[in-house]
């Protein structure tokens, strides 16, 4: 009997489905980064120095500006390059995930192929600008 596996080029592995799997994988990635931020914060002694909301804020975006107003005596470990990178990764993944999420919603209501092209164009602009602005904030603090 013939092999019952489809080669890559016959799977319909197109932009839509790549983005579909990206949405799931980015969700997992965000969870991982979140966990890193959360555990990192606790390791750096957040338990005594911050309230719950601040820990959460750090976990969702490990950016020093999120903890600057807390009782942390020494901000240095929170500004390490490692956290800059984690925050940037989270930013990029979340932006791609979120913007594509908006595209998916728009696709439900905008069905002409031209309309969809415009949506995709706008989304790319959004993605680029949000990423750039976000990176700028993260790295120029």
């Amino acid at each position, binding site marked *: *009997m013939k092999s*019952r*596996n*489809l*080669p*890559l080029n*016959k*799977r*319909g*592995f*197109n932009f*839509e*489905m790549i*983005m*579909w*799997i990206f949405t799931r994988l980015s969700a997992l990635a965000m969870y991982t980064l979140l966990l890193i931020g959360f555990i990192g914060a606790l390791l750096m002694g957040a338990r005594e120095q911050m309230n719950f909301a601040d820990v959460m804020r750090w976990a969702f975006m490990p950016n020093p500006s999120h903890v600057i107003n807390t009782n942390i005596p020494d901000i240095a470990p929170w500004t390490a390059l490692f956290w800059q990178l984690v925050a940037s990764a989270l930013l990029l993944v979340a932006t791609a995930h979120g913007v594509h999420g908006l595209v*998916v919603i728009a*696709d*439900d*209501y905008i*069905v002409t192929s031209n309309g*969809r092209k415009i949506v995709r164009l706008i989304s790319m602009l959004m993605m680029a600008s949000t990423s750039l602005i976000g990176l700028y904030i993260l790295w120029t603090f």
Partner: protein
Amino acid sequence: MNVTLKVFRYNPDVDKKWHYDTFNIEAQPTDRVLDLLEYVKGYLDGTLTFRRSCAHGVCGSDAMRINGKNSLACKTLVRDLGEKITVDPILGLPVKKDLIVDMEPFFDNYKKVLPWFINDSPLPADGKERLQSPEQRERFDDSTKCILCACCTTSCPSFWASDDYLGPAALVAAHRFIFDSRDEAAAERIEIIAETHGLARCHTAFNCTMACPRDIQVTKAIGELKMLTITGKLE
């Protein structure tokens, strides 16, 4: 028991807008909603219009929204609904009259996924059946049960948004053939469904599975198709 039946009414010959008509009916708990509608048509208002044929949930004619949820009128019993019953046409298809909607867009979508068996290889030398093991047969059993009633498609938020979404019923049909070990056109079909108007528009809302009167795991079928585009595994 006494049942208050509220029915969506719209007659294009006279009405500009739709309205509800209310009927009080003496019913048995084991009566089907279809029996109530038949009673209304027979004795109270002959103009009430709906589709039906088999009366036991196998032909797919009488999909409607019963107390807000898509079901077959002939497979929904009064005892499961209580004394207040509201019947509306299914959503997302133009209403032609009362509970009758235009089914053409639904069938058009169905036809798009090449819903027929394709195998251009020569038949087995003995001229007999193409062999298939019970396990291979089992693989797509669930999706062969579909009666094209449209309960699923017209409960899907993506379909409500626009009917260019193929809808769960069409995807179930695609699943029926793609996972049939005898069929050879999986790649062609996937090319059709793995697009913006297909798989990508299913957001696992599960309304379809909840509505399917044949208890087909519709979302699962769609999910398997999605994963197929990633892994290529047809087994």
